[in-house]
Structures are given as C-alpha cells and as structure tokens.
C-alpha cells in the first residue's frame, strides 16, 4: 500500500510541481515538462488515467449509476470555474500552499484529521459530489486541473463532433465534466478529461478522437487571459530556488524539521503538503514554513515560539500519510534529534538582571539544559550538547522576547541524541524522621 502511494505521489503533476518548487531537480523538471507537452498534444488524459482522486470520483459515479443514472447537462464555461484554482496556484507561487495542499488531488486524498479527528470530510464531500454531479471538483477547485485545462484547451488531438451529428444530446447527458454541448455540436477540450463516455453513447459515431484543426479562433481576450494563467503555472514551477532565496533574504538558521523528517531532502521529496501533521500537533508547534527556508515551500517546521515538541508525543509521524515523517516509537522519539540548542548567555535574565530564573532547565526533558552554580553565586543554565533533541521547550519557556536567550537551530540531516544516563536506582532516605 505504501509503495503504491509513493509511486502515485511521484506521478502526480501537482505533487511534482510542489517538489520542483521546493527542491528543483532535472528529472522532476523533465517530468513536469513532459506531462505538459503530452497534455498539449493529447489533452487531459492525466485526469482520467493518472489522478487517483479522478479514478475514485469516476468509481463513485459508476456505483451511484447502478441505482439511478445521473443525467448531466452541458454547462457553459464561466470565469467562476477558474476562480478558486487560480487563487490556489497564485498563493502557491507566493509560498502559501495551504489552499493548494487542500485542493491538490493527491494531497486531498491522503490528508487526515481535517477536523482534528475522524475522516477527511472534504474528501468525503468531494466523493459524494462526484457521485451525484460528476467531476465538478476537477473544474471548479482542482489546481492541477486548471494547469492541465490551460494546456489541453489548445491540444492537437481532441474529441470533436463531426457534421454528421444529429444533435440528439446523448453525449451531453453522460458527460461528467459537462463540457460537451450536443445540441450546438461544440466541445471544450480544456474541460474534457477524455473519459470517452460520450463516444460510447453517440448513435452514429459522430464523435471522434483525433487531429482536428481548430475551427474557431479563440477570442483574443480569452486567449490572452489563458496565456497569462499559463505563464503563472509555468513560472511557479520553474523559478529557481536561488532566486527565491534572494527574494526572502538569506535564512538565518536552518529551520527545525518535525521529528521523523530525517532530512530536508527526505521531507521535500515525500511531503504532499497535506498539513495533516500541522493539524494534529497538540502543542500547535508545527506550522507550514513560510520563508523559513526556500527549500521547504510550506512544508511543516517546528516553531518553538508557538509551542515545543512534546517529549513523548509521536502523533505527527503516525498521521503522516506519505511517510515524509516516518513513524517513531516513543523510545525512538525521545532521542530523535531535530535541532541543537544555542545559549546566548549575555541575553539571559540571570546575567542581565542578577535574578534567578531557570525556566529553560525546568522544561528540558533530557537534561541537555541544567542549572550550575556560577561564580556570581547564582545558578545559570549550562548545556550538555549531546543530550539535546532540539524540542524547543527551552526556547518556548525563556522569558526573553522577542528573541529567546536560548533557542534551537534545526539540522539539515536529523540525528540521534545520547540517552540520558540512568544513575540512581535506590531512593535515598532521611537520617532522622523529621529534619526540622
């Protein structure tokens, strides 16, 4: 099952865009360009043959069809069909992938805990909608669908209606994308996902798939707006990471990746941007990275100013549907090192105000931060680096703001921390019953 899912993830156009955006690589770029070219050549076959959500939606339609056949009618193209997916793609381009992650079909399919617990209600809604109304999602909501729609709208091979058409409207009644107008003998190749249901019902074979010179020149305005959208899609996937790094300013430190992410490369390659981990994190410590690092592109990071990674909690790894965060046992999690601690002594309130604090050592679950008597006569934090797991509890607890005097830096490749030594086994006892 996991193998199937990860293979599916590799094949998804939207997922490839997301991977390309965060960590550009030639194979990934080649795949995106190939899909784009094939779509321009053949049309939106991707949505029927590669997209797993598309397959599920079709299956739901068939199952519902066993009881009563859905009668579709042709719906004209309107700007509303572009609205949400355009927004999702634009936001994605500017580094906010929440909407994209919510609507990208693979991400939507694997996402969990949209309402903290229970089933993914958006997915359930999309499937029910598909059973009764066809592929509404693909047209109104899907950002991948929009990208492919633009490419397919001028595809070389396409379904066309010959002059022999009787205008019976049989094709319109079975078309789940409502893109074919049997009465007017027109079909919009941009919205057609090549399910070929219409071919099967055409009484005299007037529908054919093949080369067809474009009969009607698209209106100039429509052409320009589509071209602009195409540019956005293309540029969002091809902008080099180095350029974005410049736009954001060089990141100060490596962001802290969630436990089980293994490395920036592993997270970048496997995260589907569904943000299930962000929603499940009980301390709200995981957030979609914004400009933390150009290679992250909204993948989850630990923000220790918001919350810290709870010592015994392993929920993010358990919920991650793509194994971008590998599931850890509690024992493994206790030594899973996601970052290293850094203590800026001159900023510490103990040094600055000559008062006692120690909030960092209080919260530290491993003993990496503990208090030691300083020459000043006050106890000060001291660091035992090999014990630190980078949970950020010290950074969260530190009273110094806006920048904590003690904080964690992430690791590009996560490590294993040393296990705190067990020392005492027997409890000590008092020499006298009451020492007062």
């Amino acid at each position, binding site marked *: 099952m996991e193998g199937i899912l990860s293979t599916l993830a590799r094949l998804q156009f939207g997922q490839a865009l997301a991977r390309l955006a965060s960590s550009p690589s030639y194979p990934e770029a080649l795949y995106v360009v190939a899909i784009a070219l094939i779509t321009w050549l053949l049309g939106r076959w991707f949505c029927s043959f590669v997209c797993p959500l598309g397959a599920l939606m079709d299956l739901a339609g068939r199952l519902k069809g066993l009881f009563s056949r859905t009668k579709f009618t042709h719906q004209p193209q309107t700007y509303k069909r572009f609205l949400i997916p355009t927004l999702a793609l634009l936001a994605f381009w500017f580094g906010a992938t929440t909407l994209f992650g919510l609507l990208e079909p693979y991400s939507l399919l694997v996402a969990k805990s949209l309402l903290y617990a229970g089933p993914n209600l958006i997915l359930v809604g999309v499937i029910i909608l598909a059973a009764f109304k066809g592929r509404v999602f693909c047209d109104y909501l899907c950002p991948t669908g929009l990208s492919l729609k633009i490419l397919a709208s001028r595809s070389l091979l396409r379904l066309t209606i010959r002059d022999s058409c009787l205008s019976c409207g049989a094709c319109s009644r079975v078309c789940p994308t409502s893109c074919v107008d049997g009465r007017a003998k027109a079909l919009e190749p941009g919205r057609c996902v090549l399910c070929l249901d219409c071919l099967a019902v055409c009484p005299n074979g007037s529908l054919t798939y093949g080369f067809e010179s474009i009969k009607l020149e698209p209106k100039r305005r429509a052409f320009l707006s589509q071209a602009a959208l195409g540019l956005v899609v293309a540029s969002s996937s091809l902008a080099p990471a180095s350029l974005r790094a410049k736009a954001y300013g060089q990141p100060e430190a490596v962001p802290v990746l969630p436990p089980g992410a293994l490395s920036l490369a592993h997270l970048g390659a496997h995260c589907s941007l569904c943000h299930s981990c962000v929603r499940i994190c009980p301390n709200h410590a995981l957030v979609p990275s914004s400009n933390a690092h150009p290679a992250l592109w909204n993948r989850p990071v630990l923000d220790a100013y918001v919350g810290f990674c*709870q*010592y*015994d*909690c392993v929920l993010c790894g358990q919920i991650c549907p793509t194994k971008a965060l590998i599931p850890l046992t509690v024992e493994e999690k206790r030594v899973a090192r996601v970052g290293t601690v850094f203590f800026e002594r001159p900023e510490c309130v103990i040094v600055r105000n000559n*008062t006692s604090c120690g*909030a960092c050592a209080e919260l530290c679950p491993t003993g990496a931060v503990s*208090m030691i008597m300083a020459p000043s006569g006050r106890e000060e934090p001291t660091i035992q680096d090999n014990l630190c797991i980078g949970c950020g509890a010290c950074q969260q607890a530190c009273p110094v703001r806006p920048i904590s005097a003690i904080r964690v830096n992430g690791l590009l490749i996560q490590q294993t921390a040393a296990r705190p030594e067990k020392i005492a086994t027997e409890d000590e006892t008092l020499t006298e*019953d009451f020492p*007062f």
Partner: protein
Amino acid sequence: MNRRTFLKTLAGGALGLGLGALAPPTLKAAASPDLVAVKGLDLTTMFDRGLEALGGLGRYIKSGQTVLIKPNMAWAVDPEGAANTNPALIAHMVKNILNLGAKKVYVYDNTCDNWSDAYRMSGLESAATDAGATVAPAYQEGYFQKVTIPGGATLKTTQYHELYLEADVIINVPVLKHHGGAKMTAAMKNLMGAIWDRRPLHREGLDETIPDLLLYKKPNLHVVDAARVMLNGGPRGRGDTRYLSSQMLLVSEDPVAVDAACAKILEASGLKAPDYIRQGESLGLGVADLTKLNVQRLSV
C-alpha cells in the same frame, strides 16, 4: 435586651475571657498547631491524621461552598516520576470535601507540558473526576482574569484562573521537588500554575515575585505531598534523577512555614533553600523560623 440580661452577658463574657487567658499555654497550643508533619506510608491516612491534628477538615469547608484544589499536574509524566501530586491523595481529598457538603470541587493546573497529556499521564484527571471533582481546563488565556495584586512587592498584576477567583475555599496541594529554576517547589511556588503568564515572574526574578502570588487571595490550606522527593533534575525529572523517600505529608495554613519545613527536608539531602521563603516572611505571609511555631510531628 434589658438591664439584667445585659449585665449577665457582660459578666459571662468577662469570665470566659479570664478563663481563656488563664488556660495553660500547652493546652492552647495542642488545640491548634501551626504546622503538622505526618510520617507514614499511606498518604490518605497521613492526610486524615494531619487534618485531625489541625482540628478537622470541617474547619475549612462549610456545606454549600465551592472548593478549589490546586495540585501540581504540570507534567506529562507517570505518577511514579513524582513530578505531579499523588493522584490517590487528591482523590481522597475530593471525596472528603464532598462528604462535608461542598457544592463543587474544582481541580485545574496551567501545565508546563502539553495540557491534555499532563492531565492524563499524571493520573490526576481520572482520579479527581472519579472521586467527583470537576477537572477544569486552563490552557487558554480566556480562562484567566487580570487582577491587581495589592501590595505586590515586584509583581503588580497577574491573571488568575476564574475558578481561583470564584472559589470559596482554596486548598493548595503541591508535591515537594527540587526545581532547576527556583531551587525548590512546594507551597508558594505551586501557585505559578494558578496564574496564566509565568514569564514576568522569570523575567523579574522568581525569589522576588513568587510570594506576591499569595497576596491577592491566600489559599486557606496547604497540603504538601513529600512522600517521594525529587532531588535533582526537577521539576520534570530526567533519566539521572535521584529521589528521597521521605514519606512525609505536611499540612499548614502558613505557606512560609510549610515551605521552610520543606526546605529543611531538601537541606538534609544537601540541597539549598530558596530565597523566596525569606521574601514571603518579609511580606507578612507567615513565619519561616520553625522554632517560633508550634510544629506537631506525627507518625502513622
């Protein structure tokens, strides 16, 4: 009231006052000790004996009252770790308080670890709920209300949980531990979990600010679970934490006295007493010199 009854009352009152003054001091002291330390193996029996010595739990609880128990349940650690108050003790207290006719018993703590993990893993949420208490959430600022602390030496304002402000009776039930920041946590330090934002206290200095927390509304009774005492790596406890099996429970109305006694237990194991005890005494919260007090020591 006529002349005769007035005179009678006057005479009776004078007689009573005179007798009271004449009563031997030992008898008076035995009636109500300032601090009771109970040594034993079972915290619930120790609690019963301690309260008996103080004059009974009924001295503090009236029928129909709302009672708040403030334990330490700040840490997502098993009860064996002794980072949180013993759940059996809290359950026993809840039952006894409800038996005295209390209208409602609330339990809450503004935790350090994730709140739901701490409530669950400490065993306190289930123990207190099963005993009949309402375990209230305290993980959002909205549950807290801002107050001005009258006479606060360093801390002038803070935010108390609405249940802390509403309760007729407050019983503070900490666990005695070593504390990396404050050196020791017992009665006074436990109130840092009663408020919302602890950062100002860390910023201004724990010794200077902790006693201020008792100036707004003083808990009526302090019960310290000192059965198993963390000696290092507190307040959470770590792999290398050593424990002292001191098998003690301390009860008192005086937070300074009970903290002073707790400090003696830690000092007997080579730890240092925190400075906030002296600060608490200077604010008039209690007496730190145990020789000046009537301390009753019991073994059960």
